[in-house]
Every structure is written in structure tokens, then in C-alpha cells.
């Protein structure tokens, strides 16, 4: 099953490779991993999307907690949470396609953030499935380039992850 795990860890050189190394050494899956400093610059927050049986997920959270630089770990998918991912898509948008492309972007609430005479670059934010749906909706020949950040997640309401 898919799980989304949030990790608070010391913002130190090498902390990321400890987490990545743990996943490869123990043959755990990583679907995506995002990380950036928090409002407290000494700490980073990481969101890992992974999959595995309940036993494997239990081991993943225990092994993450065991890393000396990790402050806190929470499996967001255990309760209500929100996740978002950012995608930038560069599409063909010559005179013929421009209108259609604009309309599809609008339907998905994408924003066109760069324009050339033959391309648009569209910014789209949402849950992973929404980004997938947008890609599906486009003619595959229309896509020149895509880049996705991987999911970031946060608990709903009063559910917080702090040091």
C-alpha cells in the first residue's frame, strides 16, 4: 500500500544521503522524496512517498527514527492529510494548438507561466492523480518536457509535526 511519510531532520550535510542510503540498503521503495528547510533553518522537512506491506512500513518508520539526525517521523497516511505536488509541463503551442491548450490548462486550473511562439509552459499543482490526469488529457505528441517535484504532505486540522 502507498504511504506518505513526513520526516523532520537536522538540516545538515549528508542527512539526505543517510535517508536515501537507508532506503537503498534495505531495499525499500521510494516513489518520491522531497526536502527543504523549514521555518527553523536548522531543520529540514522531508516527504517520502513509499509503498510496502504494513510490516515493511513499520520497519521504515523505525529505521528512519533510528537515524541520529532524524528528529521526528510521522506516517501521514495513517490519518487525514493533504498532499500536493507541483508540475511544470512544456507543451507544443503553435498557432493551431494555442486555443485548445489554454482551455485544457484552465480546466485543470493550470497557469501558463512562460510563452514562446511555439510553446507554453504550464504550472499545475495538486494531488498526484490530478497531475496524472492532466498528462492523460494532453495529446502525448503535445508534451515536450515535464518536471514534477514529488508530493509534499501535511496533516489536516490540528494534526501537526513539530520538534
Amino acid at each position, binding site marked *: 500500500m502507498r504511504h506518505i511519510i513526513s520526516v523532520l*531532520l*537536522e538540516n545538515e*550535510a*549528508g542527512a539526505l*544521503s*543517510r535517508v536515501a*542510503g537507508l532506503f537503498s*540498503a534495505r531495499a525499500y521503495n521510494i516513489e518520491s522524496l522531497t526536502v527543504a528547510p523549514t521555518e527553523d533553518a536548522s531543520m529540514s522537512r522531508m516527504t517520502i512517498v513509499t509503498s510496502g506491506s504494513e*510490516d515493511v512500513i*513499520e*520497519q521504515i518508520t*523505525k*529505521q528512519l*527514527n*533510528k537515524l*541520529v*539526525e*532524524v*528528529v521526528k517521523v510521522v506516517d501521514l497516511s495513517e490519518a487525514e492529510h493533504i498532499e500536493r505536488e507541483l508540475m511544470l509541463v512544456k507543451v507544443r503551442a503553435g498557432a493551431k494548438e494555442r486555443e485548445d491548450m489554454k482551455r485544457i490548462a484552465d480546466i485543470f486550473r493550470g497557469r501558463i507561466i512562460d510563452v514562446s511562439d511555439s510553446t507554453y509552459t504550464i504550472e499545475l499543482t495538486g494531488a498526484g492523480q490530478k497531475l496524472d490526469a492532466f498528462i492523460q488529457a494532453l495529446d502525448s505528441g503535445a508534451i515536450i518536457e515535464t518536471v514534477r517535484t514529488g508530493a509534499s504532505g501535511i496533516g489536516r486540522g490540528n494534526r501537526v509535526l513539530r*520538534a
Partner: protein
Amino acid sequence: MDRIKGVELTGAEIVVRCLQEEGVEYVFGYPGGAVLYIYDELFKQDKVKHVLVRHEQGAAHAADGYSRASNKVGVCLVTSGPGLTNAVTGIATAYMDSIPMVILVGQVPTHAIGLDAFQEVDTVGITRPCVKHNFLVKNVADLAPTIKKAFYLATTGRPGPVLVDIPKDITAMPTEFLYPETVSMRSYNPVVKGHGGQIKKAVQLLLEAERPMIYTGGGVILSNASQQLTDFVRLTGYPVTNTLMGLGAYPATDKQFLGMLGMHGTYEANMAMHNCDVLVAIGARFDDRVIGDPKHFAQNPRKIIHIDIDPSSISKRVKVDVPIVGNVSEVLDEFLRLIRAGTQKPDAARLEAWWKTIEEWRGRDCLKYDRKSKVIKPQFVIEKLYEVTGGDAFITSDVGQHQMWAAQFYKFDKPRRWINSGGLGTMGFGLPAAMGAQMANPGATVACVTGESSIQMCLQELSTCKQYRLPIKIVSLNNKYMGMVRQWQEFFHGNRYAESYMDALPDFVKLAEGYGHRGVQITKPEDVEPALREAFKRKTELVFMDFLTDQTENVFPMIPGGKGISEMILSEEL
């Protein structure tokens, strides 16, 4: 706080001052370009003694053996590049067995890092998966706090090796020396006390058991909880088994001890483990060499209580019913307190019936071997070693058949006397580990049980033994084969002995003499005991005993890898 106001020390001086502050007695190491400033400072003082090994693997194993035999932190010091890569096997060995060590490593100067400088490797990267934690010191002001943290991390929680990578320019830079008295890390707070409710539940479950079993591992030794374990076992009257890493935690000569369990464990220990209805695992981790196939193990229903300081060891291979995260010694203290305070006692009749079954299993005499043999049986050598040393020696071993025979036939009554590489299974561990054990216990009897193959993997340390006059007794069971490899080839690979025969062996007697030691070869069973007696009389000399043993002897019982207990092979079945 030890602050020298206004006086600045160089990084190298700080390193040595930190070691002094930590009360480090010995540093096992090997000099090289990146650590020259540190060696210069070691040279200028005599509080911290340096032991010059002949290969960095030896330094790491010696520091490891020192730690296991003394309950102190093992410290080693190696240079950058090949110095570190040579030490990696030793670091990984310590990591697998959770041995507290601090490894200080030289690195190329900070400005040269990443430029493929001479003797540069990514030390932090290479060692990351085989240390508890590691640090690269980029600022001399961080040096003392980092070393303090390294010692703290190595010894608290589940212990392990911690590495500090120190660039050469940092060791030459001056700064004010300030050694922190305490360490506080928001990201590192190991649990020590077990959960009260869980402990109550566990004790209740144990006292109601029909067929209870106590299974303990290296954690009991690391936690110095042998006394508590012994009290607990005696108080309950329950049977107990130790893992390979846990031998000595409970007196092996006691009736309640069923011997070692696992792949080469006794029939009675494995059967009791398999057929019990309540199992308490203490500082042990249900690894593949202990329970084999977890699915097979899970077939028999039983309630499991698991005490471990590392939450990730719990429910890793086997689902448990009552997990207790905490330091083994503190949790056992609580167990004892509750049992003594309560009125409930184990049901004597049911316990008696359980012991009757166990005694039947014990009656199989699973460790029997041919005592009338005309060639030396390896088991016989270990039995005699046990007798001659009065069961009171520090025994290190390498890896293979000799290791298993030592574990089966030397009855360890005290913790920290049995020193072997259980997790990583590192051939070459025995001799340097014996050096560390002897350094930690000058005057004590230290023997290295090894084989002709293992001993050759860190043979160069015979030279270190000479330099420091370490009177280690080497008991080499020479069957001219990598015995355990040969055994597996015989059982599972159609007797095809691919590359397991040790051709062109050296003359070990001359070899020992070449290093300035005494060497002796023993070829007949009747010479075994006299040779051992003669060797152990020599309190100041290293004696290399080359026992020519039965080439075809196998280790029994054996549960083949990945199999279950019902597939155990006993000697008489062959």
C-alpha cells in the same frame, strides 16, 4: 568544564586532549600523511598509549576486542584513503555486533576535498551504512564537541561504532579548547526504561506459562545484565538458551542452561525454543542463524515477549505479542522487582513436566563425537582447552567450524569472555581481537581459537603481538580446509570441494618462530593436553599451536540455511 582560557590548542592537540578527557587508555592505529599532526601530539604525551598494528583491519578488530573484553570504548586511529578502506571490514564487524567504538580518521585538507587528492576517499560515504553515525569535521571549533558526541553516541542506546573524519588542515588550526561535559541532541534520545504496563503484562504472561523459555542475546552482555539475567532465570526456574553473541551471559555449567541455540545450537535448546508456549527474547534479534525460516518458526503458536533497546529490532523478522523497548538491565530489574513483590509463582507441576520433556531432548546428547578417534578431533581440542584454562580464559575466535566448536564446547560462565564476530562473520577477527582483549586484561589468559584459513587473514598481527609482548595462545584447528565451506559443499553441493582446500600451507611452527614466537605442531590425540598445558604455562610468550585435526569432521547439529527446526541434521543420522 575544562576550559583553558586564552590558550589556543591545535586541532591535533585537541584530539589528544579529548581522548585524555574520555579516559582512553589505548588507541589502536597506523600512521599516515593525513594524521601526522595527531601522531606528533600522541608522541608528546604518555597518557594515551598507541598500539601500532600492522594493517588497519587489525586496528579496528583490536579496538573492537578491547571493547568487548573491557566494557570500555575501543578507539582506533587511521589515515585517509587506504587507511580507512582497510579498516572498513573491522568497522562493519563492530557495527553488526553493536560494539561501542570511536574511529578517528585523517582526511585530505578541506580545500582538497572533492578534487581526487592523493589518498582521498569519501570516508563518510563509504562508512555510512556500517556505522551508528559519522561526522566530517569542517571547522576546528566543532572538533571537541564532535568527539564528545562520538563517544556519547557510541556508548548510549544500542551501542555501535562512530566515526569522525578529520581533514589534515583542521588538525593544524588553533582554537580555544573546551570539552563539553554533557551532550544534548534533540534528535537522539534513546529509551532506557521499559514501559511499566508492558512489563506487568509480560511478567503476568511469564508466570502463567506452561512451557516457558528464555532466549537471550548479545544485548544482555552489552547491557551488563548477566547478574539480573541469572537472578531472573534462577527465580523462575525456567530454561534458558544463549545465542552465539550471548554466550557467557548465563553460566553455561548451570543445569538450567540448554546450550547455544540456532543453526549449530543444541537439540534441546532449539526444541525448547520451538515448542515453548511463552518465549521471552532478551537483547536478541531472531536473526536467520538463530531461528532459520521465520515462517517455519511461526508455525507453532507461542506468545512472545521481546525486550530490546532498539525498536527496529522488534517485530523485524518475527511478530511479537509484548514488545518492551528499553535497556535490558533496567527492564530485568523491573521484572525481578515485580516477581519478588507478587504472590504468584510459576506452576510447579507444569514446569516439572516441561523440564521432563527438555531432559528427554537433552538425552539425545547432540554434541557427541567419536572419542576413540586416532586423529585429533577438533571438539576434543576445545574440551581440553576448557579444562586446561579452568574455563576462565578470554577466548576469541575467527569464523567457521572452529568458531562453532568453541561456542559449543567451551562452557562460558562469565560474560565478555567469548569474543567472536557473530553478525558479520569476519575471518581474520580472532588474532587482532585477542590483542585487544589482552591489552584490556593484562595478566589474564587469552586464547585465539582459529583455523589455518582464518588465521592467515590477519596473520601480520603476529608482529604486533611481538612488539607489545602479548602472550596470546593461538589454538589453530588445522584441517587444511576452509572447514565450514567444505561442510556446506559436502551437504549441499555434491561433495564438490570448489576452492576450499588450503594448498601450499606455510609451516606454522617456523612461521611463528619467524615472528619471534614459539610454535608447536600437534598431530596425535594423546599430545593435545600436554601441548596445551605446556603452552599455557608460558605466561610471557605467544605460543602458536598448530593442531592437525580430522579433515572431514563436521559441525553438528545443523539446521540448513533458510530451513526450519524439523530439518535439523544430527550427527548419528549421517
